[in-house]
């Protein structure tokens, strides 16, 4: 979109401004409020986390003196096979849900590129799943995936397959929760991807077509690569959120059967609030944060390299 016509005209007329703020001042002013809030809301909890992670302490038993164990909590956690299983499961879940979200999301964004009648209405309709309260989404899918009376099994039975135990077996539950998560957040991908696709100058697409390229070819060789920066941001955001997923597992499986569908975040919730092992929970939180941060840093580095290229 180019600069609106009347604005351009007015600019040319250029009356003098009285005084102007130097850029550096403006920069500081723009950043200050955010910086303040972040400082307040991040530093205290974060340093508390690190502090408590070195202790063996429970806030529920304040009368028992905290014991300084240094890195003991970390060692115990990293030696615990269970914790590795949680991370493995989390990784599988993240891959599953992001895969579904992006496959469907990109396909739908592709379909929404051209203008057609009723597109705006359909587009808004497609955003609906994202607007629901996550806990309600969890219960809705739990209801739909119920092996006895769920509508998913009913649809499955129409094709002649017997009732599947979706939530009682971890292999199935992984996909069930991934579907629920993807269902909720695919609209996010659609929204950003559509924005990216529509932002590509028309002439680039048209010239490809004139050269005889099919719409598919244009999409994969022109549109997608040029949208990569935005898509990577979307991917990054979705990955981070998937790592944190808690509400859906709480509503749908409760972490079961046994502990098989406990993600790292779920295990964290259990240790932090269920058992109230404040020290151990803090250490696990730090580990989880390091994992997410590490992966994000790799991503962001790749992202900056990409955007510098484009």
């Amino acid at each position, binding site marked *: 979109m*180019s600069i609106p016509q009347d604005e351009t005209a007015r600019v040319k007329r250029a009356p003098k401004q009285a005084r102007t703020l130097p850029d550096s001042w403006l920069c500081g002013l723009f950043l200050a409020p955010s910086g303040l809030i972040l400082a307040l809301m991040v530093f205290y909890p974060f340093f508390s986390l690190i502090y408590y992670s070195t202790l063996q302490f429970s806030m529920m038993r304040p009368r028992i003196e905290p014991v300084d164990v240094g890195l003991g909590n970390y060692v115990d956690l990293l030696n615990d096979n269970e914790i590795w299983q949680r991370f493995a499961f989390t990784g599988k879940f993240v891959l599953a849900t992001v895969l579904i979200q992006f496959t469907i999301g990109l396909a739908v964004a592709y379909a929404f590129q051209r203008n057609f009648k009723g597109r705006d209405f359909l587009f808004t309709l497609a955003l609906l799943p994202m607007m629901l309260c996550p806990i309600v989404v969890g219960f809705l899918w739990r209801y739909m995936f119920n092996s006895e009376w769920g509508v998913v099994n009913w649809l499955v039975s129409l094709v002649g397959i017997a009732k599947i135990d979706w939530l009682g077996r971890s292999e199935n539950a992984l996909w069930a929760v991934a579907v629920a998560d993807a269902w909720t957040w695919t609209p996010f991908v659609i929204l950003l991807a559509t924005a990216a696709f529509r932002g590509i100058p028309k002439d680039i697409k048209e010239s490809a077509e004139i050269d005889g390229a099919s719409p598919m070819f244009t999409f994969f060789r022109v549109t997608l690569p040029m949208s990569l920066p935005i898509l990577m941001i979307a991917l990054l955001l979705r990955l981070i959120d998937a790592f944190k997923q808690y509400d859906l597992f709480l509503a749908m499986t409760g972490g079961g059967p046994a502990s098989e569908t406990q993600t790292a975040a779920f295990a964290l919730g259990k240790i932090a609030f269920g058992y109230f092992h404040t020290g151990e929970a803090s250490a696990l939180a730090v580990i989880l944060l390091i994992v997410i941060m590490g992966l994000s840093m790799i991503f962001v580095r790749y992202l900056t390299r990409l955007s510098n290229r484009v």
Partner: protein
Amino acid sequence: MRRNAVLLPALIIGVYLVFSTGPIIWLMLSSIKDRQDLFAWPPTVFFRPVWTGYEAVFGVGSAQNTATAVGLYDSLVNSVVISGFGTMFAVVLGTLGGYATSRFRFPGHGDFMFFVLSTRMIPPVAVLVFYHMLYSRLHLTDTWLGLILVTTFINLGLATWIMKGFFDGVPTEVENIALVNGYSRLFAFRRLVLPIVSGGIAATAGFCFIVAWNEFAFSSILATTRAKTLPVKISSAMGATGIEWTQIFAAGVVLVVPVVIFFYLIRRYLLMGMTFGVLAKGPG
């Protein structure tokens, strides 16, 4: 060739809409089923509707005189105020921060952006107790100010990143034309750049509002009675005498209405301005 170009997109959209709206229709249907119909096999599509779920959500009819109905209206007001202001602050601060990071490549701007993003990485459960403590000391627990602060905070990362993305897509020529002609940066920002990214602002506001409105983890612990938000209030109906499915589903339907209204209000900005990325660095 042209027929295929229409058929495939139509098919994709059609299938997707079934997938995305199907469960929502199921949600609405299930919110008015009685227990027999809820668990019937095969699932029923035609049945006599029952309104107890909605009655429980609004605290009327069969759900009068319940403790859950107390403060329902107040929590609605709380939610509107907290989500409204929280979204607004997040969008404003995110816009300012995104612009600053996009235009003024100050030293450490990459780290700043990463830091901003990292606020989104913390699972709420990890830090809930610490926030509870912090708020208790600052006397922010159960206050509008406290919850607005938290709501702004959780959306700040998202808002800043998305807005920066949009600003990156606006060529610097736009402000340069103004600056060269003696206008202030602030003027260029307000009058020239902002209108271009209005679609981005709308999208950001939409995302932030969704997160703010549906926020549960922090609100459930940091608010007790006076500043309790609607999702927390309604969720307390869960598991009263069994999992009250109709109540949960009715709550889901009721909770989504304000969000839909919000998106309807910003639809013009959302759909019109939805372009971004590689903008007209040409045509020439």
